[in-house]
């Protein structure tokens, strides 16, 4: 096996279900999980003579997303029919956008705080609106070939976001998807629930393999059926390896005979991709403008007003948090990635305790841990930012140490009490400075070996004294015991 260098080229197509109450071209509900075929009407099931009428809200959500993705918004966009026969497509065509999509040429920046790749801008080829198809359910059990069709989903508004082939690894693809999902969540345009199909990902992947002076490209493979970001990551990793091995066994180039695009499906159970469509079917969708719908116009003023109302988006928010609260980029990233409500909690907490770093640490180490244990979201967290802020102030004042404060927080949750009440209940009270000093003197007198060690600069020895101090008075602050003891030894 030669050690040939190759580059992985990945582009992603993401279909996002927009969070509207009604479908893209009729007034049927878009809610998930209803009895099959109960959310339908003559329009979405394509009955003769029915006509589509555009849902302005769907267009508004699409526009908001496109603007947030730094896309150019043309003044004029139109609807086209994409034609193919399938039982879950009752009109015989999908209403989509072909040559004049509602947005083009945007970008999304991705970065990895752990440094797996350089921060980079991933191009967005286009984002356009279309209506969803229904669901076919095939029951092929034991000799039967029974198919049933549920048209509840038919006509649900989708935004198809197509990236440029700018991604160079499965890690980057995952980061792109996470950042995109975060952005969509911040915008409130989609619930991004992959299990319910609100967010679907298809990937195009091939390899550029160095062949001396020139570069050879392997045939492009479209990978489908990936039901989680983890699955996308694994499928792409698998597919890159598979293509490389296939190349080494039989070097077929893109565009050469046998080098056509194929479609493969990810088998999550087997952790492999399987061929779905072998032949290159030159799918001719016979696109043409839908004569039932009017073109849509967006003026510069419309776009400016959408841009003005976006609010601070994740990328900007990370910078703001780091600067405003003096926290690391990494910490700002963790906070922002948790979503807008958690960031709001953090900001309130930081203001309440007047210490951004402390607030950041507590949110990341304790609040997130507790939320995880409770399987809850931040708006369900029983301790308000103001209440937690009170506790953090006690810590700052040296009234209580971090370890005990965690017990206090748990008590605040259990008894639904304030920090002061919880501390009182746990018998925590501030130890007087003179009491602390006399305690330290007692400990040093009783432990001459420790004093000797400290004199020799073995600072760790003080740990033994802290243990004894806590035994005598559980309310003492270890940090204070440590500094007082060291100070006293210096004076000896």
């Amino acid at each position, binding site marked *: 096996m030669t050690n040939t260098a190759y580059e992985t080229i990945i582009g992603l197509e993401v279909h996002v279900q927009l969070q509207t109450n009604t479908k893209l071209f009729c007034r049927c509900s878009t809610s998930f999980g209803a009895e099959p075929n109960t959310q339908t009407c*003559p329009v979405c*099931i*394509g*009955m*003769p*003579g*029915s*006509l*589509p*009428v*555009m849902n302005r809200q769907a267009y508004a959500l699409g526009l908001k997303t496109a603007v947030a993705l730094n896309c150019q918004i043309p003044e004029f966009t139109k609807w086209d*029919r994409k*034609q193919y*026969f399938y*039982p879950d497509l*009752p*009109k*015989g*065509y999908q209403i989509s956008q072909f040559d004049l999509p509602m947005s083009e040429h945007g970008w999304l920046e991705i970065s990895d705080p752990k440094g797996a790749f350089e921060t980079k801008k991933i191009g967005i080829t286009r984002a356009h609106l279309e209506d969803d198809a229904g669901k076919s359910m095939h029951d092929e059990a034991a000799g039967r*070939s029974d198919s049933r*069709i549920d048209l509840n989903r038919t006509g649900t508004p989708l935004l198809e976001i197509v990236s440029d082939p700018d991604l160079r690894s499965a890690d980057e693809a995952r980061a792109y998807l996470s950042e995109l999902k975060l952005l969509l969540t911040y915008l409130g345009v989609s619930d991004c629930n992959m299990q319910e199909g609100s967010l679907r990902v298809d990937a195009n992947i091939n390899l550029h393999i160095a062949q001396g002076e020139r570069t050879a490209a392997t045939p492009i493979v479209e990978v489908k059926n990936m039901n989680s970001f983890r699955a996308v990551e694994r499928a792409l990793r698998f597919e890159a390896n598979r293509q490389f091995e296939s190349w080494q066994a039989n070097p077929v180039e893109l565009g050469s005979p046998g080098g056509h695009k194929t479609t493969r499906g990810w088998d999550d159970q087997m952790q492999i991709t399987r061929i779905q469509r072998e032949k290159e079917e*030159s799918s*001719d969708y*016979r*696109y*043409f403008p839908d*004569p*039932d*719908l*009017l073109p849509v116009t967006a003026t510069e003023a419309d776009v400016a007003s959408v841009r003005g109302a976006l609010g601070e988006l994740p990328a900007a928010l990370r910078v703001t948090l780091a600067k405003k609260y003096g926290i690391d980029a990494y910490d700002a990233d963790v906070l922002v990635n948790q979503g807008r409500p958690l960031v709001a909690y953090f900001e309130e907490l930081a203001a309440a305790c007047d210490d951004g770093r402390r607030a950041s640490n507590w949110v990341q180490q304790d609040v997130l841990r507790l939320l995880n244990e409770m399987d809850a979201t931040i708006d369900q967290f029983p301790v308000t930012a103001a209440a937690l802020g009170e506790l953090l102030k006690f810590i700052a004042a040296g009234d209580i140490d971090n370890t005990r404060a965690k017990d206090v927080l748990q008590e605040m949750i259990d008894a639904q009490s304030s920090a002061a009440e919880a501390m009182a209940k746990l018998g925590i009270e501030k130890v007087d400075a003179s009491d602390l000093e006399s305690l330290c003197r007692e400990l040093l007198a009783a432990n001459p070996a420790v004093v000797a060690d400290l004199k020799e600069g073995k600072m760790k020895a003080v740990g033994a004294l802290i243990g004894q101090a806590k035994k005598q008075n559980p309310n003492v602050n270890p940090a204070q015991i440590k500094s007082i003891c060291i100070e006293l030894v210096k004076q000896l």
Partner: protein
Amino acid sequence: MSLIDSPATELLQLLKSAEVTAVEVTQAYLDQIARYDGRVKSFLSVGSERALEQAATIDQRRGRGEPLGELAGLPVAVKDVLCTDGWVTSCGSKMLADFVPPYDATVIARLKAADAILIGKTNMDEFAMGGSTENSAFFPTTNPWDVSCTPGGSSGGAAACVAASMAPLSIGSDTGGSIRQPAGFCGVTGLKPTYGRVSRYGLIAFASSLDQVGPLASTAEDAALLLRTIAGHDPLDSTSAPVDQPDYLANIDQPLDGLRLGLVREHFGPGLDDEVGAAVGQAIKEFESRGARVQEISLPHSKYAIATYYVIAPCEASSNLARYDGVHYGYRTDEAAMLADLAEERKQLAAAGDEAGLANLDSPLMRLYRLSRSEGFGPEVKRRIMLGAYALSAGYKDAYYVKALKVRRLIRNDYDAAFRDVDLIVGPTTPTVAFGLGEMVDDPLAMYLQDLYTVSANLAGIAGISVPCGMTSTGLPVGLQLQAPPFQEERLLRAAHMFQQATDWHTKRPTLAAETP
């Protein structure tokens, strides 16, 4: 004058003044249908029972002094292209022979709200594709003036039933001339409104950018009456125009002073029948004698209209008709027979060791599509689906569809330029009068040329009307076409009414032989 010979506007007065009842009027038309429709065959279904019930209800409401809709008690026939809730809407096709819509087209809803009595669904060319009603999957309609001739099409039933006094008012649809041409052939008044004037919601689509619903009636005044009810913006149709709706009847009696009429040079060329030309010439003189100034104009791109139309309309049709696939509603092939055939084919291919044949054998789904569509559609519909699918396919779309769209724009520009100089355009509705049944069935191109003078109005989206203006020596009516700028139906109807005040062609009715029992 008997009830069935009175114009709708007069009937309405009789109804309002309670001189006649809705039941009497309805019964009179039902009797006429019973007597003559066996020969004319203008109806696919007649709703006698429900029509009489509805009429009785209206009479009761009138008796109680309740407010009634503006067409209360007037029978209206509806082309079977418009969806009627709970009433089979076949569109003249085997594909929808048993299709019962669960909703009303907006036009139907408006007629119902106006208390019009839906008397029956009229015959048509399948999916409105044709000019003779011979493409109906069920039976051809005949021309009441000569039952060996066609009534024209595709709204043949709609025109024939008015000509034969089986309905005072009737609704048709016009994609390339489908209201005006049969109106001309049958000697009635037929209006194609401006695109966007009447809602298309519930109108089974043939070519969405060209289709328009319109009235057929005995007189321009009656057409105005019906248009007033069905026209107007509809939020369910994005292409219906949010424009003001004039009262088409309010000023219809006022003659148009100083009317400027444009005579299209290209409409008086080769192919125009001499008798048709003479009758139209006479009609133009009539206008001149009433103060109209006539000038020749040119629509230079009109020579491309037929070609343009027969690209755009099939393209849209190929897409609009994709939904009839046997899966969700409408005709489906015999599945058991289909599966048995497939199994047999598979067996034979396997026995012959034909690997390629096996690989290419239809899936059951593909075979279901293939057979349902092959069996459900008639030849003209298939021809247009194939034309359209071809013209939209990769590699041909720019040469056909996209080019046709550009020519369409030029055709509209021609009209815009012409209407700067004239108020209305006048000419023949069709090159010839009604032709014999079966005469053109084997020559689709000759049939397409019937649309020569009418398609441009659809391509340009403007309004047009056909009014009777003469008779040939063989006793067949000649149609005069008037065309108006977009949303100038009021002008169009006033001019047509002005002509009908001066002439009596519109009052002529064929003598029908009752069906021998």
